[in-house]
């Protein structure tokens, strides 16, 4: 049984739960990759918030000159074993290089695992390291409950995804609406939003011009 503290963030994970694999279409991602591939100067800087994944690296290799792996999913997993900080310093949580602004950010099933204040601070951190016009591709849960394990997404050759995760234990999901997400992601505007068959909402955000950038 999943164990929750108040706020539904503190849980005890199960080491024995079986892994599940859910294939899913991700049309906005496919569109993004097609757009990257059709661009003549394919030297994009890509930021993957997930843990290291060889298939992500290889899939974006044709388009990217720099691929940065932030490993945020690993940090979140360690949070779930203890008390989740409400607003960790994003520079400590996810230090990013200052020399090259990112053109593409991949944020798959991670925002739901962050409290509002932490997401707000993380978004500011991301925006500060993104070029204006950068694309942020996000997958967000729409159900009331979600697995504690964010899992990992295996990128298919056709641009589809397979979500590999432990279905149990589960925890409350924040169910953030698009308007809420846009408030928590200042500096980014939703360019595409689509509900996928498995209950994920797929977003493609665009980094808006800011005074600082």
């Amino acid at each position, binding site marked *: 049984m999943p164990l929750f503290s108040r706020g539904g963030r503190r849980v005890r994970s199960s080491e024995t739960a079986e892994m599940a694999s859910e294939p899913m279409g991700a049309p906005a991602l496919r569109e993004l990759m097609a757009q990257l591939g059709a661009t*003549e*100067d394919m030297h994009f800087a890509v930021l993957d918030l997930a*843990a290291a994944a060889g298939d992500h*690296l290889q899939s974006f*290799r044709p388009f990217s000159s*720099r*691929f*940065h792996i932030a490993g945020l999913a690993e940090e979140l997993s360690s949070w779930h074993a203890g008390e989740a900080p409400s607003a960790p310093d994003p520079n400590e949580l996810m230090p990013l*290089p200052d020399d090259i602004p990112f053109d593409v950010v991949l944020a798959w099933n991670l925002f739901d695992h962050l409290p509002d204040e932490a997401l707000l601070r993380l978004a500011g951190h991301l925006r500060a390291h993104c070029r204006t016009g950068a694309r942020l591709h996000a997958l967000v849960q729409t159900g009331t409950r979600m697995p504690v394990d964010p899992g990992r997404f295996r990128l298919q050759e056709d641009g589809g995804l397979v979500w590999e995760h432990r279905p149990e234990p589960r925890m409350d999901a924040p169910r953030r609406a698009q308007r809420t997400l846009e408030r928590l992601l200042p500096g980014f505007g939703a360019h595409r939003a689509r509900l996928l068959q498995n209950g994920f909402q797929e977003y493609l955000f665009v980094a808006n011009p800011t005074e600082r950038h």
Partner: protein
Amino acid sequence: MFDKSKKSTPSETPDHTPTAPGRPGASGQTTTIGPSIRINGEISGEEDLVIQGAVEGNIQLKEHHLTVGEQGRIKADAFARTITVRGELTGDLTGAEKVTITASGRVRGNIVAPKVILEEGASFKGSIDMETKAEAPTLKPAPKSKSA
């Protein structure tokens, strides 16, 4: 962002098979730093190197293969023809041909190499640059001591 003019297209990455860990390199030599050994400073050489111990500093094997074994604990920047990490490494890696992080490898730092392989289960945080030409850094001479 997506309307840049054409400059170049990425070339295919050559698939080079590195010298297997423990197998002698072109010099016919492989050196192993055992698990009980601790080294602080710079390591350079003309043979393959397997590190199972603890190293802090810099490692330069221009034409050879560096393996950080499962027991290896490294805090160093490393340059080699190919690099395979099975243990823990904090630092920047430059591989003239290839860098591989195996399932047991844990790396924090940046990688520059024309080919990078992250095996399933590998842990890595940092940037990967597969376009910049990997060039060996020159060893800095030791600072001269002041004469009396």
